[in-house]
């Protein structure tokens, strides 16, 4: 198959930039742990309210520098009393759903997690600025989808 000289140059440059780009993404993902939300844990979607840690949702402190925020999503809101976390500390979010698929998305942050019934989604995040953040659902979940929201307060210690 014959390739024009310029085409060879064009494709070579294209493929090289592709390799560089993917290496950057891959290294950042796996050596610096910059991976999107996910997780392999499962749960019975009908027994969420009886299963730890979702039987007692909210914020708990794991150690000096780590907090865990457990949230249950359902049409059309989130069960998570008193969502307050300190600035500059790692917060591990754990979210699941009792009914359909939702999202747990914190405005102005990189927390954007799909919440799938039967599964637990995990994402760790450290807030850099104090304030009150809007949390919303960005996966269609029914008539009240655009009204599904809550807030998280990030305070200075």
């Amino acid at each position: 198959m014959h390739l024009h000289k310029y085409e060879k140059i064009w494709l070579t440059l294209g493929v090289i930039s592709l390799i560089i780009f993917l290496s950057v993404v891959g290294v950042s993902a796996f050596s610096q742990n910059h991976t999107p939300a996910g997780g392999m844990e499962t749960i019975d979607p009908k027994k969420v309210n009886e299963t730890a840690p979702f039987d007692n949702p909210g914020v708990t402190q794991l150690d000096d520098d780590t907090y865990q925020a457990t949230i249950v999503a359902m049409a059309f809101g989130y069960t998570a009393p008193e969502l307050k976390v300190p600035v500059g500390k790692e917060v591990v979010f754990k979210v699941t759903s009792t009914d359909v698929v939702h999202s747990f998305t914190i405005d102005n942050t990189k927390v954007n997690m799909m919440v799938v019934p039967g599964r637990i989604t995990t994402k760790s995040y450290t807030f850099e600025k104090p304030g009150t953040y809007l949390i919303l659902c960005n996966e269609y979940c029914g008539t009240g989808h655009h009204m599904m929201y809550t807030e998280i307060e990030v305070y200075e210690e």
Partner: protein
Amino acid sequence: MIALQDRKIALWNIGVAYTAFLIGTLCGLLQVFIRNDALQLPAWLDYYQILTAHGVLLALIYTTFFIFGFFITGMSKSLGSFGPKVRLFSWIGFWVTLLGTVMATAMIISGQASVMYTFYAPLKASGFFYVGLALVIIGTWISSFALVGHYRVWRKNHKGQLSPLFAFMTITTIIMWIIACLGVVATVLFQYIPWAFGWTDTIDVELSRSLFWYFGHPLVYFWLLPAYMAWYVIVPKLLGVKVFSDSLARMSFVLFILFSIPVGFHHQLTEPGISNFWKFLQVVLTFMVIVPSLMTAFSMFATFEIAGRKNGGKGLFGWFTKLPWKDIRFTSIFIAMLFFIPGGAGGIINASFQLNEVVHNTLWIVGHFHITVGTPVAMTFMGVTFWLIPYLTGRKFTKSMKVLGLVQIITWSIGMLLMSTAQHLLGLLGAPRRTAYSSYNNHPSSAEWFDGILTNHVTMAIGGSILFMSAMILIYIVIMTMFLSPKAVEAKDMVDFPLAESDMSNTPKWLENWWIWIGLALALIALAYAIPLTHMIQHAPPGSEGFKTW
């Protein structure tokens, strides 16, 4: 001109396509006004019902019927008239697809299927909605097999020859489509239908999502490849030159069979149940389609330059002014290509593993597919419509139609530029997609999204209104060229199917050995999916009951 009976099948497909387009764009208009609180719906109608209809009718139905109308015409033109069996099965395929469309649409309109075109479980629509979807897919398979049959007859009668480029590309697209549909057929037949009719109690949600996206990504290539066909084989003819390189065109198409399917996880990057390793592997495979895309871009610009120079263009860029800008068949497709440059770049961002978190399910995504399928693909189809319908009906494409065509293309571009820019920016700020009007109880964050120069409630509405006007002009052109324009009697008024010549003398024969490509595609699919899907099934949580939350 092709046989009358073949023309009839093509015209019916195109007719259904534009009926779907009419209803779908009307839904789009309603959406932009509901989203900014300028329109209150009556109690029996709901935003999400309208949005489901918009997605299904434009993304699935308009595209599919138009594509088959285009394929049928081009296959009859390049391989000769259909035999009776091919004709029969093309009709059966058409009616089955139409029956499925009507069933699914009836369920949406009656409020029993406000589940979006992605129908994610455990939202549970009426069982007949899923049956309708299944019939749509089965119908396209029947139509596909009819075309494959036609192609096989040709191959038998032309032993040892490569098929014409149009036929080769049609078959490539069909092979990809059939392999891709296996995922959605599996989930609809074995998961959704038994569950929706109550034969099973629960559904494995994550598995259904994964099977859907196994299909969902190649679905976008099913829209794109027919547009690429127009770019590769129609555009050169409009410019008065040959296809730039026959072998390169074929090579780029078969690469799409390989790299458009094993990549569905890039739509599931922020969800649980798939480990990072498999997500990342599919991200890498996703980026492989950049290679055939670069090949396509090169071929296009080479074609433009050769044509421009042939017409006397001088200097480094002089050829540019020598292109036939007044020919609406060309200008439409050229603008469509321009939209694909930011569209493709946006796609790279979406698939970039971590960056996906910034944009996933925001309005950015909505902006993205309006400048990929909504313009590059749809506008290429519009540009094809201008000659395809008159070619099939034997009517003139009159001067006034040409002017209207130009107005239509320009207004669509302006409308889309406004609407999609607003959507992209709003998405970056964090505004979610698939939402009726909402201020989240007057939350300051949400107010912030909407107070920019372009990111306000008005820009999208203006863009959407211009788009709808453009759509109506197109519908007018379709009706005129289908039923009302004067018949072309003199040779100079006849509208032609602009099929470019392609020099196959250097094209290697192995490019048309489909078993190589099917085998490699299946191997890549097994590599990307076998282990994570097995794990998903073996470690499945208790399933979900259905919910009707609308």
